[in-house]
């Protein structure tokens, strides 16, 4: 399988009202992630958010585009840079922010934190913080769907560094062998912490690894939310039709440091490289496209920004005012409640 180009934009032209709604929703979804993460970074700097915190800024089109392509009953699992996916999946920004604050109202009741966001009702199966450990899990959700005879799909995210760990190979081999309904999404932001792809992977075109596992591998422009959505549609369709797994390598950029404890540039990448990556900002790209198509003007954008700002401010207020977990919560959820 080769590289999939973004489809010709001409196909998407025209004042198509339902389509405009979709674009607007994606734009809002990306702006929400951006503003949420900016606030999360501020809260971290103020000591309101503890532990490790890995921001998603720059990668918004990946979460929004991929998650627009699946159904509510499909499964989603990610690694530890998962705030964006949690929000795009529909976990309330209040619940995500409260989880970062460690509050009882958080989506994991304050027991998970930034790296362990869960919402069983949305089939958002975590936030996993050991690199690559979510890859077999996502494969397992697909196995369960097959076992039950449903047409559910598992959307399994990983950073590009996880493609070098054994769990990646074992999972993709089994998924290819058994034709499981899983879509593996490599979010390739160029760096595993401070290590560039070319210093970690024998081949840097990671999508080509799919050839080893009898599945299509597709490189996707991760700054173009429409391209992300279309590539994911194709892969999800395959999986849902029982045609097996796919590997998407979605190329994107992380504007911030690996976590809150390192600078965005200066050590392992230059300021110039970072600035150049920002030239293809996913939000600006969609915004520009919508303006060109007559779907958006300054007033419309301003309304979205104001709406998002209010939502994020509300989320912060909610998180600040929410109660800490009760002391007895230390001891709950270790084991299942005893059956009566």
């Amino acid at each position: 399988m080769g590289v999939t180009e973004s489809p010709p934009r001409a196909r998407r032209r025209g004042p198509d009202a339902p389509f405009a709604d979709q674009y607007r929703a994606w734009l809002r979804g990306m702006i929400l992630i951006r503003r949420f993460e900016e606030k999360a970074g501020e809260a971290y700097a103020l000591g309101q958010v503890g532990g490790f915190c890995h921001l998603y800024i720059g990668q918004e089109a990946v979460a929004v585009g991929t998650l627009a392509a699946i159904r509510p009953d499909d499964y989603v699992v990610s690694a530890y840079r998962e705030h964006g996916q949690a929000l795009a999946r529909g976990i309330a920004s209040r619940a995500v922010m409260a989880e970062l604050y460690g509050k009882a109202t958080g989506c994991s009741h304050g027991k998970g934190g930034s790296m362990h966001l869960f919402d069983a009702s949305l089939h958002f199966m975590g936030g996993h913080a050991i690199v690559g450990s979510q890859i077999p899990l996502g494969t397992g959700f697909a196995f369960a769907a097959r076992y039950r005879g449903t047409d559910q799909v598992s959307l399994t995210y990983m950073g590009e560094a996880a493609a070098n760990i054994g769990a990646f190979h074992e999972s993709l081999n089994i998924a290819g062998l058994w034709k499981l309904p899983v879509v593996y999404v490599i979010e390739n932001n160029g760096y595993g912490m401070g290590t560039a792809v070319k210093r970690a992977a024998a081949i840097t075109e990671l999508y080509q690894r799919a050839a080893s596992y009898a599945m299509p591998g597709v490189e996707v422009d991760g700054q173009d939310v429409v391209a992300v959505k279309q590539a994911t549609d194709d892969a999800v369709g395959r999986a849902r039709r029982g045609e097996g797994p796919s590997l998407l390598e979605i190329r994107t950029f992380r504007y911030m440091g690996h976590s809150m404890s390192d600078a965005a540039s200066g050590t392992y990448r230059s300021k110039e490289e970072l600035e150049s990556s920002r030239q293809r900002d996913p939000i600006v790209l969609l915004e520009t496209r919508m303006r060109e198509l007559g779907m958006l003007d300054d007033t419309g954008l301003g309304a979205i920004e104001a709406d998002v700002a209010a939502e994020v401010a509300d989320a912060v207020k909610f998180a600040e005012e929410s109660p800490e977990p009760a002391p007895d919560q230390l001891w709950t959820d270790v084991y299942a409640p005893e059956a009566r």
Partner: protein
Amino acid sequence: MAVLTYRDALNAALREEMQRDDNVFLMGEEVAEYDGAYKVSRGLLKEFGARRVVDTPIAELGFTGIGVGAAMVGLRPVIEMMTMNFALLAIDQIVNTAAKVRYMSGGQIGCPLVIRGPGGAALQLGAQHSQAFESWYANIPGLKVVMPATPADAKGLLKSAIRDDNPVIFIEGEMLYNQKGEVPDGEHLIPLGRADIKRPGNDVTIICHSKTVAPAMNAAKSLADEGVDAEVVDLRTIRPLDQDAILASVAKTHRVVVAEEGWGFAGVGAQVVDLIQREAFDDLDSPVIRVHQADVPMPYNKHLEKAAKADAAKIVAAVHQACYRG
């Protein structure tokens, strides 16, 4: 009561639970077409088909993680490790996901999973195939650790483990599979977390589990010949530990030997001793004595291997020490 081998008792438990609940399936290396590396799954492929008896590549991390994932969404996988030595390759999934996902998710997502297979040493399999890792798993909150010693316990405990809503590490033994014993007919369930008095006695308590139960019983027999009446307490479940059963026996005999197959350092016995000194200090007439594997990797040579292993003679010697005899 039917007389079954330990292997066939496990097989019956798997069959019954798979008949009872379509969510239960068996997955692992050679479990299906080969009928099981140790034949525990014999006949199950024929009865249940390839959907529910699933051969995997040699990829412990991968297929264990698939099992953990399937359990997170409500299936009840039984993952067979050809030996528990190989489970080290999967320990990230066991420790970091299976044991923690309920807690990390604030109770939203459980992991009703059984990981089973033989643990500990057999005969001359060398250092990498002869390890008893129960203390590793027992150290982890969120896991249960079950180790049956007899066919009846194997069946009753495996059925309970499969029905349990938590991840259960279920450790069997190559040297136990051929052992025969009476197994109650009909539905036979043994609750997890309950020790069993395998032999009542009044003079000394021998606490043991899994492959140290038989040598403990042999030791008790020879001790009886010299007038020492030993009580043999089979823990059966390492976590949760049956503290009441241990303390009740200590209160009765006042002298204790703790035997286990694995290494002593930070072993299961150390945890039992901690409990006893804390909760039953005044009941003790002598220090608790431990019997365990020599603190070395298991040697291949059969004489050296025998010297390294816990056995009945070492248990008898430990009882003598606890009773200030000989």
